[in-house]
């Protein structure tokens, strides 16, 4: 879990770890299922060591143990502001795949078209899963918008694979 994400969730008000976890689950929907329950706490501990958050033990309810409430420090607030202003976009590793095809062909180790086919099968399975998850989300769900992004990216990757295939199908590869 990216530290800045957890920091930003604390910008509105101090929260308990379990509240942050619930907020993340709501925002990510089925995509958050892979998230380990302990991850938020691990991240909070790191942030505290780095002086970006402070914690205060609050009295527990009768049915619950004491819990720590986390709040941003001044430096934590500054880091959130910087993060919001940053322009970044996740990088799919196209270069690695491209170089894999070139290396496979050059060394005669594998047929690039077979590598492309295997990759396409994997992406289509992911597309199927992401689409099914998107269709299962109720109207107006936060996670549906995220899933739409995942679907669109997979479509773009699949289109690039088509271009890869067209290019490699014509070339002579000695195996």
């Amino acid at each position, binding site marked *: 879990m990216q530290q800045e994400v957890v920091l930003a969730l604390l910008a509105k008000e101090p929260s308990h770890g379990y509240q942050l976890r619930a907020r993340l689950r709501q925002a990510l929907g089925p*995509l958050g299922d892979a998230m380990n329950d302990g991850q938020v706490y691990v991240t909070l501990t790191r942030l505290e060591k780095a002086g970006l958050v402070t914690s205060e033990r609050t009295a527990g309810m009768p049915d619950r143990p004491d819990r720590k409430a986390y709040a941003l420090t001044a430096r934590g607030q500054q880091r959130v502001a910087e993060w919001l202003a940053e322009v970044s976009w996740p990088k799919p590793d196209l270069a690695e795949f491209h170089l894999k095809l070139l290396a496979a062909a050059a060394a005669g180790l594998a047929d690039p078209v077979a590598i492309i086919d295997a990759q396409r*099968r*994997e992406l289509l399975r992911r597309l199927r899963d992401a*689409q099914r998850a*998107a269709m299962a989300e109720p109207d107006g769900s936060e996670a549906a918008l995220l899933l739409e992004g995942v679907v669109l990216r997979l479509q773009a990757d*699949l289109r690039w694979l088509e271009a890869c295939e067209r290019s490699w199908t014509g070339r002579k590869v000695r195996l």
Partner: protein
Amino acid sequence: MNSGAEAMVRARGLRKEYGKDESLVRAVDRVDLDVAPGESLAVMGPSGCGKSTLLHLLGGLDRATAGELWLAGRRIDQMSERGMAALRRDAVGFVFQAFHLMDELTAAENVELPVLLAGRSPRTARRRAAELLDQVGLTDRARHLPTQLSGGQRQRVAIARALANRPQVVLADEPTGNLDSEATLDVLRLFERLHEAGQTLVIVTHDARIAATADRLISMRDGAFIDETRLTGGTSGQLGALLNLDG
């Protein structure tokens, strides 16, 4: 198995050629295919790969140059024109990219038409159309003409029409080809529901989204099948891997 009894669609050595000698084109080149009852199959490939021709052969819209073909256990490659017409009407539901609705008829009348042509009473036709338009979520558009409907709504009417005579197989040619992202999702949902209801589906497309709804995917190039993938049982339960959330 020579009878083709278990498969809903079965083809052996299916071939379709155009022209001759130098200009001979093999649009479909020695295709073997089995589609199980209730299976959803997608055939993907670039335009001109022969996938539409293949679909036309499977549905009896066109005749093969060579090969054997069965639909729901019946051998159809040597069937008479009359037999083929009845088969297209009763056993096959077609969905096309350009919808092919009758512009002079309302949505409901478009769906009623194949029921009437199959010799049922107007009352039965009306009931069936109302039921199907309800299934595709267009009850309130039943009296609209196609020109008064959006592309997505027209395709949903076309899907309702394809189902009118409870076909054994639905054949779809680029069903999302003319639709925007939102309307595509509606059609995807409909196809998922049909699939869950046990409808046998064959979809030819170059849209990865509709192809990804299928159980099985075949890639086609230059008239031949080059790759086959089972899409079920993939990455389920690991959607988070799509986002590197576990990092």
